[in-house]
């Protein structure tokens, strides 16, 4: 097998495009504004090296080296993600921009792994053991990941709804003079915000219909029950679909290749599988999503490989956080949402007891919180739509990824 690989790479180098341009071709169908930020440099380094190798001998070693280089890149990217501060106005751990970076890593990794696996290969090479088992398993995961992408895209709608409610609260709280009327206005928006955040992800349309009866009957005497901002949360993946079950199924048979396999084709399959599972897991933990209860906090990450160190640490960190918060029933670990929840809670307390004209000290304190909430809203306003598009891009990438694998497997011909 290694000898075949050599020949294959010679052919690749002699005739076809460098990897970088392959990556470029794969993503050119999407508008550039959607694509991630630093993919090109990430891949560029490897592809440049590959080109340089053109004239050199010792191809298998080179391939192993490339794989190692790739793992090193991944390791760096995850180390960078791990180093994000827990609480900072920008780029915080699990913030929107952090998640965008994470999805970027996935997109890069996907391109690179696919290139390693498929470029100039034919069905014979990727359909012999153990790949005949590994590739179909990978494709199963890919399909599940697509559904997760859609669930998360949907969940982001809820996050956006929260943002709008928070914006209302901010604009009310910023009013000068700040009277009880505005306090009530802010409170109403904040209460809606809290209930939107704490919508149980199991409550689907059934609950919704029951909730709706309010609007048909006459007004209930209870004036505090304002349903005005009640946003229906139709999960829209499918009945009985469960994000946590999907993750669980995706982790089945996910084991790092051992021995000689670790430096052959099973390695990129494992890398890609692990990254897909991991990224999807993070998305589910961070963003509201259909049925997350029982979401595993354990992913089978092989910690004996160098490149997974940071990834494993990120995993542990999020897992811990999830365990702490899961019981409460919450909108997700997204930094901005957490922040919003905390600020919202505190501001509700303030509006609850507020009496015009209020104490100066308290008002100053609140003003700071309001400014913070406004800042969170601003970051959401900037980041949510691009994130939604990025996840959609990830979805399309998974679709293409699957098609390309199937094409090679079915037609037996090489890709490109």
């Amino acid at each position: 097998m290694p000898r075949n690989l050599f020949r294959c790479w010679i052919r690749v180098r002699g005739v076809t495009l460098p990897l970088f341009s392959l990556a470029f071709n794969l993503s050119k169908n999407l508008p550039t504004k959607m694509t991630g930020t630093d993919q090109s440099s990430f891949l560029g380094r490897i592809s440049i090296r590959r080109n340089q190798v053109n004239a050199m001998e010792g191809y298998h070693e080179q391939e192993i080296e490339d794989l190692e280089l790739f793992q090193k890149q991944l390791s760096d990217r995850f180390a960078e993600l791990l180093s994000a501060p827990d609480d900072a106005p920008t780029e915080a751990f699990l913030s929107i921009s952090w998640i965008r970076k994470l999805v970027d890593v996935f997109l890069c990794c996907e391109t690179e792994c696919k290139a390693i696996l498929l470029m100039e290969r034919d069905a014979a090479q990727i359909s012999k053991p153990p790949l005949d088992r590994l590739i179909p398993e990978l494709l199963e995961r890919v399909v599940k990941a697509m559904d997760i992408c859609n669930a998360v895209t949907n969940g982001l709608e809820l996050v956006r709804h929260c943002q709008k409610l928070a914006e209302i609260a901010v604009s009310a709280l910023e009013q000068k003079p700040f009277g009880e009327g505005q306090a009530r206005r802010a409170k109403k928006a904040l209460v809606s915000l809290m209930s939107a955040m704490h919508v149980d992800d199991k409550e689907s349309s059934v609950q919704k219909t029951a909730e709706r009866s309010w609007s048909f009957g006459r007004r209930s005497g209870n004036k505090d029950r304002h349903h005005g901002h009640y946003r229906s949360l139709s999960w829209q993946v499918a009945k009985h679909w469960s994000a946590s079950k999907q993750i669980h199924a995706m982790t089945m048979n996910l084991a790092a290749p051992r021995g000689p396999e670790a430096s052959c084709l099973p390695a990129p399959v494992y890398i890609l599988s692990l990254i897909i599972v991991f990224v999807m897991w993070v998305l589910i933990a961070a963003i509201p999503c259909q049925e997350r209860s029982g979401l595993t906090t354990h992913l089978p990450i092989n910690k004996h490989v160098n490149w997974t160190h940071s990834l494993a640490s990120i995993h542990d960190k999020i897992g811990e956080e999830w365990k702490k918060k899961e019981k409460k029933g919450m909108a997700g670990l997204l930094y901005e949402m957490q922040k919003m929840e905390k600020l919202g809670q505190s501001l509700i307390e303030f509006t609850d007891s507020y009496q015009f004209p209020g104490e100066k000290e308290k008002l100053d304190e609140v003003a700071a919180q309001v400014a913070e909430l406004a800042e969170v809203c601003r970051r959401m306003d900037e980041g949510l739509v691009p994130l939604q598009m990025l996840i959609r891009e990830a979805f399309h990438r998974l679709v293409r990824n699957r098609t390309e694998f199937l094409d090679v497997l079915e037609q037996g011909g090489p890709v490109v």
Partner: protein
Amino acid sequence: MDGCRSGVPTYEGDLHVVAAAHHIVKALGATKNLSDDLRKILIDLDSHLSMITSNIDSKGGRGLVDVEERLDQAERKIMRWETDPMMIWDSGPKEASDYLEAVDETGKLVDGLRGLSVHENRKQKEILHRAMNIFQTAMSRLEEELIHILVRHGQQFEPKNMYSRSIRKDIVYDESFVSVEDEPTKETSSQNCSNDESGECIVDLVHADVIPDIKSIAKVMFTSNYGPEFCEAFISVQKEALEQYFSFLGTEYLSIEDVLKMEWTCLSSKMNKWTWSMKIIVRVYLASEKQLCDQVLGGLGSVSSYCFLEISKATILCLLNFGEAVAMGPHRPEKLLRLLDMYETLADLLRDIDTLFSEEAGSFIQLQFHELLERLGESAIAAFKAFRVAISSNGSLYPFAGGGVHPLNKYVMNYIRMFPEYWNTLNLLLKNQHPGVADQVTKPDYGPDTSLLTSCPMAYHLRSITSCLESNLHKKSQLYKDEALQHIFLMNNIHYLVQKVKGSELRLFFGDEWIRKHNAMFQQHAMNYERATWSSVVSFLKDNNPGSSSMSKSTFKERCKGFSIAFEEVYKTQTSWSIPDPQLREDLRISTSLKVVLAYRTFLGRNLAYTDDKCVKHTVEHVENLLLDLFGGSSRSLRNSRRW
């Protein structure tokens, strides 16, 4: 008061005007890039207005009392509803307009008082505070009223009469390719839905009578900076209504995994349903929703399109995801027509989509549509290829009993008979597959120019499909040991092929030349059959010595016997053979009769002397009648029946 009568407003109304003007002037003064002259004028105006205001303030006791009275009045009007279980807009137009008036009044008072609060004035602040409180109550109430109106007067329309559920394509073609055994149950294809497809149809999602009410609420809320609340409430209700309508159409939410695992019959009906719901959702529901948004929120800048996008995004994405799932599924041949349906529907809706989501924020949706269209096209082509592969590789281990029309042939021909309906789309998609013939097909009209049709990409592919089919049928014919049956099989099948082509629009694509050639082909097989079967039988009746007048009796006996045995053998086997087409069967019997009966009659006529002998087992009439039993599809035997 007399001295500055002109400068001191006596009515609160004037007071507002002054306050408002002061505001405007201040705002204008803050503008950068003003010319010096203009700035000076503004500064002058500012100081003048300030003077007027301070004048009022100093003499403002009376003014504030007025304000307070007016606020009391408005408050009564607003607060009385807080204890009333009835909704205001349900109670009547008078109540509603009274309420709006009170809200308007309160708003004005708030604005006026705010404009005045340049100097500290406890009383004034207190009134302002109260007014703002009342105002908040009113705004909150308006939001509730809005939701109530939208829900209560929301109208669902029956989709039943719209885009009559795609019966355009025969239900029978839902058969999967593997079940080619099934006989089509319905041969006709009705075309009764293409007429109403182009017409746009806008309905009132909310009863037209309440639109002015909603608009008036929108107006008040937006001018009072409660626009975001209005939007969130409006979006929430309308989004949910759309989702309800979505399930009312019977459209389910399906995960991609579900779709990929779905059985064909189920998937096929879901694809049909998708095509149908997509049209209704986009062309009727969303068009109507867009109109509603524009009616209610038109003139408020991008608010209308923002709300529209928020309302429709999730449902649209859900519909698109099903399309994606279908497009990425295995490219089975039976999917082709459904895929083309989906493709055509989407292609047809692109213009609507581009209009509905023309704003920048909606370009995301537009893009998703265009991507899906592309993907469906690719998928359709893949299914098309799979169809050909399936035809070539459809193998049989055993010969098809009776030599009739093979199910593969039936399936393929009935299937491709539908292709002309997708002429434009298929040409478009296949063009890229065959650049050579691309240039001839750009003309979109379905005109009578038949020469053009026979050279379009679809025609090319159709002929290549039938030639695949023909070679497969040849392969299948080789399974028969009996050469005559091989010919019957090929005759039957090629005849069927030609009939299907001639009897449908396919003929335009295949062309007369093709038909002529294939007519000749099955006729050749008929002749070959006659030769293979009857030459040896009739040879018993041949006169070996044409010169002599008659043969010997023993020869005659022998010949007679030989003929009878051979004939009975043919009878026994070929009654079980089948020629399903009655006309073809008739033709072949006649031509066989001509050959056999004539030879037999001549044979007996020449040897009249021996004909009363027992050795003549069958009379000419018998033979003629017996020949009618051939190709009936059920085996008969003469030896046992002894009927004659």
